């Protein structure tokens, strides 16, 4: 059974609490990995040594991407 949107949404809420202490998290959302809904964690810069985002939260896979600074596009 692929991971459902509901499972990913639930995981997102626990992820937000879990990631609150990590520096430079600039977004936590929902994406897809193959057929599975998954979490996407956006970072401003790579995490310092010793800090990491878990690869899964429950059964839900987590994709991490360094997206840099996000600025208004005006």
């Amino acid at each position: 059974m692929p991971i459902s949107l509901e499972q990913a949404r639930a995981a997102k809420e626990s992820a937000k609490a879990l990631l609150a202490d990590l520096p430079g998290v600039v977004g936590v959302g929902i994406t897809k990995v193959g057929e599975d809904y998954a979490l996407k964690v956006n970072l401003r810069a790579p995490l310092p040594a010793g800090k990491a985002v878990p690869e899964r939260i429950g059964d839900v896979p987590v994709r991490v991407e360094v997206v840099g600074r996000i600025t208004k596009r005006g």
Partner: protein
Amino acid sequence: MRLDSVRELKQSLPAQLNKAFAVRAAAGRTTSLAVASAASLQREAPSYFLGVSARGKKNYRLAVRLQDRALQKSDLVDQIAVRAKGEVDVRYVGRIRARATPWYRSKQRPLLIGSSTGFLASGFIMAGTLGCFVRSGSSSALYILSNNHVLADENRYPKGGSIIQSGGLDGGSPTADRVAKLTRFVRLDPAETNLVDCAIAKLNSAIQADLRKLRGIGTLAGQRSDDLEVGDVVHKVGRTTGVRHGRVTAFELDGVAVEYDIGIVSFDDQIEIEGSGTRSFSDAGDSGSLIVDDQMRAAALLFAGGDHGGSNGKGLTYANPIAAVLKALKVKLA
């Protein structure tokens, strides 16, 4: 040739040549100097410029660039070649014009979706993008929809303040190009969770608008009813990058931390998009662009982005779902 020899030749040649060729150019002239004849005389006059080019490290030549094909086998070029002892590099380059300004950075009447617009800034000039047109309540009055930071200067622009098209950065006049007045905006709050960056400005009654045309993409076909999904293809036209195509990479993105003049503003429930092919989906100045889905339905309002990430490495763009924008402003698509 040595570099200083080429430079000396380049300096002295025009005066000598002008003497020899100006007489001939003037000789064909018969009547008085009306505007038209002055223009045609200009076309007949030798049109070239000189520079320095190099073949290898120390072998310099006189570069002769012709803007008129007729000069290619002319006495003028022969004379130049003689004086440069044959050490010339002659090329026809044609007329050189300043690169044309694209339509989305120019004045558009009727107003067009995707064109440059913005508030009147004091001390600097700016431009964002006109997203689309909306109506409020049962009134037939038309409003421009864009971002708070494009129409309301991040909460700082007064209600009733003038909006110009094109924006000041694109030469919009603070007087002649006023098209609308700021009506309302949703406050950007660095201390709270935000959902949208949006504002509306009421069109001045004399200003016409093309309500549904997204030039280069198609005709707006209403509002998308369901949420965007990962993989959905989207399009936009905006003031800086014009028409771009993209793909949704994430949705329901919370805690999107965006840098503004007023500080970092955090947004929940955002859409993330990457550009198609080798390009980004947006760049600075595209803020306020309406994002449509593959069936030309309004889906989101572009407001932020970065230069890293995405599968082509060209950065990611962030957008508010259009339903949240219209709800927050209590408006409907026109």
